[in-house]
């Protein structure tokens, strides 16, 4: 199983509809400081069901919606879709491709969809149960974690081992 495409609209600095296709091997993302690379990583965590704003560098979940610039008005909704290729049949579903979508409106309402059919967050979590794909089991490694795992304040290192068990 691997991810083949990510689509963002109104998510953080991606005001316009943007499609990113991924290779099953290595895909690299480059660009100057502050242009939106780590926002793509946040979009991946979010569409997989992340509920903690602090892991998305935000104080409130509504901060993930495009909040405007000097020239452009803020938007009312953020939407991210992620498509998987289910080539090894790991996902308990008969399709060979699965797309999950998450939407958030300024009002606070949120929507989840699997292959364009509305569902609950619980359904998405169940789909990925034991595949290692739930929002905290997939893996993002960033420089900040280097200091944290080596300093080991509050026995964090052991927590990481327990989470993997």
């Amino acid at each position, binding site marked *: *199983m*691997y*991810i083949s495409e990510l689509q963002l609209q109104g998510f*953080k*600095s*991606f*005001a*316009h509809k*943007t*499609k*990113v*296709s*991924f*290779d*099953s*091997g*290595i*895909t*690299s*993302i*480059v*660009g*100057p400081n*502050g*242009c*939106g*690379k*780590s*926002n*793509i*990583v946040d979009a*991946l965590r979010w569409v997989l069901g992340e509920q903690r704003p602090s892991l998305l560098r935000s104080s409130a979940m509504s901060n993930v919606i495009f909040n*405007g*610039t*000097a*020239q*452009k008005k803020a938007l009312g909704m953020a939407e991210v879709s992620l498509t998987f290729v289910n080539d090894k049949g790991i996902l308990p579903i008969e399709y060979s491709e699965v797309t999950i979508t998450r939407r958030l409106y300024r009002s606070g309402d949120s929507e989840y969809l699997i292959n364009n059919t509305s569902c609950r967050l619980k359904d998405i979590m169940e789909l990925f149960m034991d*595949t*290692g*794909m739930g929002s905290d*089991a*997939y*893996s*993002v*490694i*960033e*420089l900040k*974690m*280097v200091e944290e*795992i*080596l300093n*080991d304040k509050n*026995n964090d*290192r*052991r927590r*990481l*081992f*327990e989470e*993997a*068990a």
Partner: protein
Amino acid sequence: ATERFNKTFEQIRTNFQKVFKTLFFEDDYCDLIIEKDVEDPLEARIEIKAQPRGKRPSGISQLSGGEKTLTAIALLFAIYLVKPSPFCVLDEVDAPLDDANIERFAKMIKEFSHDTQFIIITHNKKTMSKAEMMYGVTMPETGVSRLVGVKMGDIEDAA
């Protein structure tokens, strides 16, 4: 539960030693040790031992910035390999590394990319050139991101 923890710990320990020796040298010593003789075994700390390139630091705090980064990447990656997750994102972890270590890091990623999908965010030309697919993110309009496909030939000015 302790049974499962110990089994996972042993798996992570083996992975850690394997990845550590790919990032440093084949005969460098490293290990993960669970603290013995503690009141509450469920809270026993996990200690990292790392002696890159034949040195004898008295603890990981004496390692250099680059050595700490490689040791932490080896451990985080060892934990990642225990879970079956299909993709792994690396966000500018190669920033503190010198050219020789970047080469070793990029080689390790290439080796593991047969079973694992990688998404790598980097400013370094050596790391970006190992990818099969590459995207540039720009901000032509203040505050609004745009994506551009980059051909491998354009790497020179993409940094």
